[in-house]
């Protein structure tokens, strides 16, 4: 199955869940920018970022291993990065002339830094998405100046995603039920059938979108979404944002001055 409908949100009541979603979005972006901007080989600063992510996960009751499984998604890219020690020119640490392979020091530093910062960025995003409902996330995105049209589009996509995915899964189940596990006359035929299913799904979606649009118009939709429930920034939110950025600043400065 090439679709996984496991929403990343974990219900909970830790302080990360209660933190203002706008603050979470900004801090998460700051974290990822910091991680990506650190020069290769800034091990101390990378460790500092790791402690921040670990501390946040642990202190808000998510568990230390929360983000670990999500890191697997980066596996194909991690495998590509593992070729770096062999392909980067520079001082050689190990050599196998018989195989024509050599491990270079800059290559090792680059590959190690890369995998660490990718792993850290995955953790930061996992913490944001694990503690923020999609509805709150959309509201936060609009508050940090993402155009309202895009935010509404994302909201509608999310709203009908699970419905249409269900419909696609029903169609797949119907195909399995009628083909008795057989593989059909051949790949061409299979592809044609899959294409026809996609086409049929499109017609259903098109019809649904027209019904949805008519229903929205009948309720007074004028192209803007209105949200009744908002929240105000609390002193604790300001404190969290300021402290997080202080941490990032300190770690960047440490990486730049490290001798």
């Amino acid at each position, binding site marked *: 199955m090439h679709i996984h409908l496991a929403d990343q949100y974990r219900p909970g009541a830790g302080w990360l869940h209660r933190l203002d979603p706008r603050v979470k979005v900004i801090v998460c972006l700051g974290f990822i920018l910091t991680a990506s901007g650190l020069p290769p080989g800034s091990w101390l600063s990378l460790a500092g970022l790791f402690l921040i992510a670990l501390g946040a996960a642990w202190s808000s009751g998510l568990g230390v291993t929360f983000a670990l499984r999500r890191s697997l998604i980066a596996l194909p890219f991690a495998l590509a990065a593992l070729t770096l020690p062999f392909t980067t020119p520079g001082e050689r640490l190990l050599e196998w002339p018989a195989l024509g392979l050599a491990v270079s020091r800059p290559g090792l530093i680059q590959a190690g830094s890369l995998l660490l910062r990718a792993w850290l960025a995955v953790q930061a995003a996992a913490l944001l998405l694990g503690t923020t409902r999609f509805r709150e996330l959309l509201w936060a995105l609009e508050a940090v100046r993402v155009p309202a049209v895009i935010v509404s589009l994302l909201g509608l996509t999310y709203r009908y995603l699970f419905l249409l995915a269900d419909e696609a899964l029903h169609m797949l189940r119907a195909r399995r039920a009628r083909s008795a596990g057989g593989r059909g006359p051949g790949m061409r035929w299979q592809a044609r059938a899959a294409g026809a299913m996609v086409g049929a799904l499109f017609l259903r979606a098109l019809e649904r979108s027209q019904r949805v649009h008519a229903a929205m118009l009948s309720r007074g939709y004028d192209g803007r979404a209105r949200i009744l429930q908002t929240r105000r920034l609390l002193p604790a939110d300001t404190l969290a944002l300021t402290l997080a950025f*202080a941490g990032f600043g300190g770690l960047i400065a440490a990486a730049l001055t490290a001798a």
Partner: protein
Amino acid sequence: MFLSPAAMHIPDGFLSLPVALVGWGLTLALLAAALRRTNTASQLPLMGVLAAFIFAAQAINFPVAAGTSGHLIGGALAAILLGPWQGMLAMTAVVTVQALVFQDGGLLALGWNLFNMAALACFAGDWVHRRLGALQGRRAPAAGFLAGWLSVMAAATAASLQLALSGTVALRLVLPATLGVHALIGIGEGLITAGAVAFLRGAQPAVLARPEGASGDRRPAYLLLGLGLALLLTPLASGFPDGLERVAERLEFGAQARGLGIGLLSDYAIPGVSSPALATALAVALGAALLAGVGWLLARSLARAES
């Protein structure tokens, strides 16, 4: 694992910061152009539901050889069914929701991911499809196949150029591997796109008969996409050191600097402070205070926007 669409969603950390930021700049310009050329407010329900359709259509697959399966990424199909600008916006919603809800692909890398899978895939598919002629003619499925195949190849090539430019993997390794794998993935994409076009041509030809020019002027997209590809290709073509050599030089320099006992950025040494440990501590405090100020100002502006 390699034969899944996730292999095209670049996660965070695998692009260098400047490369990632350039990608965001190009993508924001493309999105602004798309929003200007579509009547988005009145088409929101249509595009939202159809973005969800693309997402769901990615679940429909068929077995190919060796335990892999053919399936859809959707850029070409979105462009054929909705027009390139609307298709690009629908794909933007798909790829962004994949990043924000399912963590497929990074947030900083989302700029290039949108450039590849939403903009480039849609406009490449649209270009092939229009070149090959009538939407409703007998050649429509063949045009759909080529549009689907090329959209995947274009997006995959762009993604490997971005990775190579970031110094994440050597171009001579990533390009053949990516092109080889995606030439196969593209066949699945092409077959499903062709099948969908053939089905719709029989079942409801009206939905394929988009009025010509309904999707507006394509030139801004060609300009921005061309600029992006040129930015990706120039460093490789002009004999500049490739990403990895640059990385190596920087790191070798760092190692030499360490060996000579000077800091990587000795300009940061603070005059009048002789102890390196104290200088580092001061720099750390300064950096922390500086960004704490930035954080506080951001919080202030959030609070001000409320009232």
